[in-house]
């Protein structure tokens, strides 16, 4: 009986428990801060321009990571997230080539819906065939890459209206003049991240469906016995993954002003790395979005830091890989037996 007596959560207990459960994401933000600090030291004239370029460069990858997080939380994995992002980059650039700003926003919305549908179809294929997620998404990654090349055989074609580009490459004050001086130092690219979190993720996180998604990743049998529809939940999870990948494609279209069918491949495995570094359990069910976001920025920021230090590209990947292993090992040690 004694083992069963649990303390009622008073304010301080609840606070300590929150810290314990969120220690990993918090430490990833510390890592990000250290990397940014190191950049400041390494770069003599570090300023708004460097921050702006970092956000522009990191945003498509960060959005791909959000997509990967959804799949992994539900107990799956999406090896197609990168080529899917490239596919929607190509589609958006093709549709927006001669569009006005208003039209481009509508096209953007359409692309997001397409992203959801394509992702949901991936989930449905996994349900119907019973083939493991990793194999189905490996196959669809080739399909998406091929379709992207069919739509746009030559990289750099297509286009997007300037105003649409400003949404991702400008400052906040360019989009919303009333933000004034404060807005003039905040990269507008963060708007797409805010959109992903405030319009898609947080409302979803408040729904019962998100509990079903976590439950599915946590223990499939328990979820089934709890009355969760495994098939419907998986479709929803991959639908969200597709939506975030499509948003990443839009961000890429906005920043480059064109399409590139070959661009997304490196995002796939990097997004898995960011998910792991962000404290999401690869077996599913555990983690959130805060960690992976900081992890994505950290991984990208590390590459920039190495550039600032004048280290050659070949070494950059080695350093990135070694850092990943060390950090995950270190955090994993802290994490054992704790939440």
């Amino acid at each position, binding site marked *: 009986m004694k083992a069963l*007596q649990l303390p009622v959560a008073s304010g301080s207990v609840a606070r300590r428990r929150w810290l314990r459960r969120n220690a990993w994401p918090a430490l990833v933000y510390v890592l990000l801060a250290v990397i940014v600090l190191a950049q400041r030291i390494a770069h003599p004239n570090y300023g708004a321009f460097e921050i702006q370029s970092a956000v522009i460069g990191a945003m498509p990858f960060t959005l791909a990571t959000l997509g990967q997080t959804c799949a992994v939380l539900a107990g799956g994995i999406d090896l197609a997230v990168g080529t899917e992002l490239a596919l929607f980059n190509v589609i958006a650039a093709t549709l927006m080539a001669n569009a006005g700003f208003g039209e481009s926003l509508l096209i953007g919305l359409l692309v997001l819906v397409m992203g959801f549908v394509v992702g949901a179809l991936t989930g449905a294929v996994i349900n119907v065939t019973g083939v493991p997620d990793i194999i189905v998404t490996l196959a669809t990654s080739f399909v998406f890459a091929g379709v992207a090349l069919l739509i746009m055989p030559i990289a750099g074609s297509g286009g997007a209206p300037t105003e649409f580009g400003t949404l991702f490459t400008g400052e906040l004050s360019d989009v919303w003049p009333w933000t004034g001086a404060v807005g003039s130092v905040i990269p507008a690219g963060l708007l797409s991240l805010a959109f992903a979190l405030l319009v898609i993720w947080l409302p979803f996180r408040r729904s019962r469906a998100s*509990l079903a998604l976590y439950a599915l990743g946590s223990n499939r049998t*328990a979820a089934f*016995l*709890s*009355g969760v529809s495994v098939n419907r939940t998986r479709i929803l999870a991959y639908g969200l993954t597709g939506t975030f990948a499509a948003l990443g494609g839009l961000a890429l279209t906005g920043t480059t002003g064109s399409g590139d069918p070959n661009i997304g491949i490196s995002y796939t495995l990097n997004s898995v790395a960011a998910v792991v570094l962000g404290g999401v359990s690869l077996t599913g069910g555990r983690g959130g979005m805060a960690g992976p976001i900081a992890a994505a920025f950290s991984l990208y920021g590390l590459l920039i830091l190495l550039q600032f230090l004048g280290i050659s590209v070949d070494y950059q990947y080695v350093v990135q890989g070694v850092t990943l292993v060390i950090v995950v090992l270190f955090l994993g040690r802290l994490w054992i037996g704790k*939440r």
Partner: protein
Amino acid sequence: MLDTDNLLQVTGLRKHYGAVVALEHANLGVRPGEIHALLGANGAGKSTLVKMLTGVIRPDSGTIAVRGREVRLTDPAASQRAGLGAVFQDPALAPDLTLAENLRLTRADPAAVRRWLDELGLQALDPGEIIADLPLPTLRIIELARALARQPDLLILDEITAALPSDLAESVFRVMRQWREAGRSVLFISHRLGEVRAICDRATVLRDGRDVGTLLLAEGGEERIVELMLGASRSEMQPAAARHADARQTEPLFRCSKLRVTGRLHDVSFEVRPGEILGVAALEGQGQDALFDCVAGVIRPDGGEMRLGNTPLALRRPADAIRAGIVLVPADRVMALLPQRSVRENIVLPFFGRLRRWGRVTQRWESQTVAGPIARLAIDTRAQRQVRRLSGGNQQKVSVARWLATGFRVLLCFDPTRGIDVGTKRQIYALLRELADQGAAILLYTSELAEVHLVCDRVLVLYEGQVVREMKGAVADEAALLRAAHGLTAEEAAV
């Protein structure tokens, strides 16, 4: 038998998996306001029946009616809508979510769950706790409270007391009685006959996938239940070989003392002599897995000592045990073998682990090594290119043959005859006896209690992780073993 006033009426449920019969023809009637026990030996079909009632699997044929109306239970939610509320043997709480989130996920009313948790003695439980951080007994109580909060007409409790300390079990019984007084019913599945007698009104016994009787517990008592569970089908097999009832006065080859695995095995001590077959009998989940895992080096015990001869054993992995000469033939043959590879490769596999032979593996060396064991065990090698195509009995022989080729001193057999035909069974028993006669010490767990006295010199009965009885093989008939395995002492059984 058919009673139209029954709350739950199950008629002729049947489920086959290929050639395997899980349930042949099961009837069950539960009246309003009663606690009804569902009993049966391992493999009688209890869990299959419960899975059908809870919508986890669908029957091949037969009907389930609640309050006289036939229902189709296509998934767990449908079962709940029909008024059946279950606490499953498998945990049905998502481990990474908090208690509150789990309740929200299953649309349970938190206030009602809270009231039942208070009633069951978990007043201090905080809904913000993550399920994975809570101890197992707490989870069972949470699941019970959640099921009760839905106000089901019939509460199905599948082995709920197996994981509970006695004080919590008492609160569960109190709530069950309350439930009955409110005019609702409980279907209670338990291995513990003492509990069943204390709390249940009637009991239905399943055997070989059929219901073989429903009795009032007030008049019947355990004797009648045990009789029903056993049935008339006594084993027709003869002892495999002359038994060496009085173990030869040799030094024990293997002994363990006070072996302990937290929560699974408590201070188990025994010894096996060369030439002896020591049986282990137990119902499912009484610690036999932990015992064999310890001796085979799969898990490390939390306490106690094992010795081979006079050498203490520190087994860190199965390879250590094999090197010491302790080898395991597991129940799951697919686990032990490489199903895609040939009989020959499967038999020579352990040699590679030992690195006894360096350099190229020649076909000739392989053939020579495997020829002896294959001939000795009469393995049917017509399908030898892939072990998975062999019959279960022949697969089992291959997993024994590989140890014949390498040599061993202690042989651990975990339910080696499960799902094997009578002829092959007899061959395997004869083989075990022959190996023992050549000086091996054999530890044999079998779920087929009727066959224990055919092959074992001595037998230990495990109950809740402890050795509760030790008998001579000759007197270990099925009835005696079944009583001991249900935790009934000799005195109680005699009453």
